[in-house]
């Protein structure tokens, strides 16, 4: 009797269930719930424009962050964004604009494409993963240019119709922005649930992949799952981007934009889900401060990455957390 109880107790401590969401995840979700207030409180076009860019960037950065949880740096985000974005733009040509349907498609299609690609890419070690994901984004660019009948080639697809939610068109800037908030909230929820549920698995892979494998963790399964979900999340970012521009154009999904999303994630901090959120918000806001000289923002990203890698490994969120811990003790 006693032994059984003890045994049950042991099992409980050994496979302690992760809570559904942790503090950082709840904070992240609350941030995006609160964001809905911004379009309702102001009508400033500048605020709308910057907020919209941030809402797209945040989703893309979360896609990068999911893979970074396993120490994998992905440059494939623009490729999956393109699949999500072009899915919506092509469906728009056939007057399919239903938000629920398109959100599902923008998530599922890139995720499906990621399954065979993941099987190919994830057999490779970390360095190859970086190079091959970069090449994937290049391939996507070429595919977009070489399939003009489907994707409009170098002209892209202009005049994508606004989304419809439960039959009514979200045509005003405010409604579009509210929908962008919704997509960001959804992406955050997916990212939070995934990374929280598999927190220990991902952490084990990040810490020491070989050790994790030798302890019985089926590493490829979690990597593949992360890759597929990250692709889906990137697809949502593509949807949000096309919805913002009402255009799907190859230049929006240039492979080099992957560097921006990586910068958001690294500068914000890779230690928690708040990192990509803080990073994309600050960097996109800072980019807008450059005004017409936006191209110089890349240099700022470069300097910030140097600082983070050399001096503040946790990024902004990690450094703030470390400081507050020191201050409390």
């Amino acid at each position, binding site marked *: 009797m006693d032994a059984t109880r003890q045994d049950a107790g042991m099992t409980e401590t050994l496979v302690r269930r992760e809570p559904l969401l942790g503090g950082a995840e709840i904070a992240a979700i609350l941030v995006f719930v609160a964001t809905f207030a911004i379009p309702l409180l102001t009508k400033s076009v500048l605020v709308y424009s910057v907020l919209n860019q941030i809402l797209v960037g945040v989703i893309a950065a979360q896609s990068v962050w999911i893979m970074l949880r396993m120490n994998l740096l992905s440059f494939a985000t623009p490729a999956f964004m393109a699949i999500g974005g072009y899915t919506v733009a092509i469906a728009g040509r056939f007057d399919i604009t239903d938000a629920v349907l398109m959100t599902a498609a923008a998530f599922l299609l890139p995720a499906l494409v990621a399954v065979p690609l993941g099987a190919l890419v994830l*057999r490779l*070690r970390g360095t190859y993963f970086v*190079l091959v994901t*970069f*090449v994937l984004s290049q*391939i996507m660019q070429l595919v977009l240019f070489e399939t003009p009948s489907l994707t409009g080639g170098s002209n892209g697809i202009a005049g994508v119709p606004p989304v419809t939610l439960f039959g009514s068109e979200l045509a005003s800037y405010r409604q579009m922005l509210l929908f962008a908030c919704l997509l960001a909230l959804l992406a955050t929820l997916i990212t939070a649930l995934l990374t929280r549920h598999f927190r220990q698995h991902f952490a084990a892979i990040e810490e020491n992949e070989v050790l994790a494998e030798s302890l019985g963790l089926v590493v490829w399964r979690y990597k593949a799952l992360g890759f597929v979900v990250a692709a889906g999340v990137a697809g949502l970012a593509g949807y949000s981007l096309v919805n913002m521009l009402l255009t799907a154009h190859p230049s929006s999904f240039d492979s080099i934009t992957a560097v921006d999303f990586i910068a958001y994630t690294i500068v914000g901090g890779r230690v928690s889900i708040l990192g990509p959120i803080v990073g994309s918000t600050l960097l996109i806001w800072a980019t807008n401060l450059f005004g017409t000289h936006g191209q110089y923002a890349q240099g700022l990203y*470069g300097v910030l990455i140097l600082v983070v*890698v050399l001096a503040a490994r946790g990024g902004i969120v990690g450094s703030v957390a470390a400081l507050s811990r020191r201050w409390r003790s």
Partner: protein
Amino acid sequence: MHVFLEAGIIGISLGAQYALLALGFTLIFGILGVVNFAHGGFYMLGGYVAYTCVSGLGLPYPVAVLIAVLATGALGWVFELLLIERLVDDHLATLMLTLALYLIISTGVLAVFGPISMEFSFPVGGAFRAGPIYVPRENLIVLAVCLIALGGLWLILFRTDLGRALRALADDRAVARAQGLHPRVLFPLAFALATGLAGLTGALVTPILSLSPGVGDPVLATSFLTVILGGLGSLGGAALAAFVVGIVEAYTSVYFGGSIGALVLFVLVLLLLVFRPTGLLGRETRGA
């Protein structure tokens, strides 16, 4: 038939350029274990340094090329010594450092020279004719210089003590260190050698192709493709793959036009990875 031969010569010429880039890239990876995202940046910088020397300082083109090699080599040496060296065992961190350097180089070039492409043309014009075959003379000169550089690199790596030391470090760093080799001296040298090669390629090729702040991106992509095809860290594989990529690119652009050739090449390389994850001549070496 002469179109076929012309395309072949262009392909070999492209291959020689890609080989210089890919060998530098794979040297850095093989010896230091660093993925150099700034490789395209050094190529671009080589072009801009040569351009400044020719049109700003009025120096003859060969001198400008030499200065470009020295300048990019020196920048690589300093960058390795001051920054990469501190984190050389952390793959992700060094990758981020080189990425940051690339962003800074690109922005610097943009700030100094502006976004438009430069009027930078090769000093030797005309074409070489042999019967129906017609090849621009500039391509032949670039090919000759690239082949000389490749030969020089081979001599350094396989016929000098420095080369032996570098290859020993690539094979097994711990053993090489135990034998008395000094990574702190040799790593910056290897980095400088590789970035100097990228600068040389930039100084040679940008007058023929184009010189603008965006030229580094496709170079980076081609270098990646080449080293994946050849096998990361394999010198022979990189050289072989570079010529394969160059020749395929030349023929597909002549016979199909557009970017179909590049697309086919990219997809073929991905498929190769299914069957040979280590590339053509790669071995299971570095646990990267």
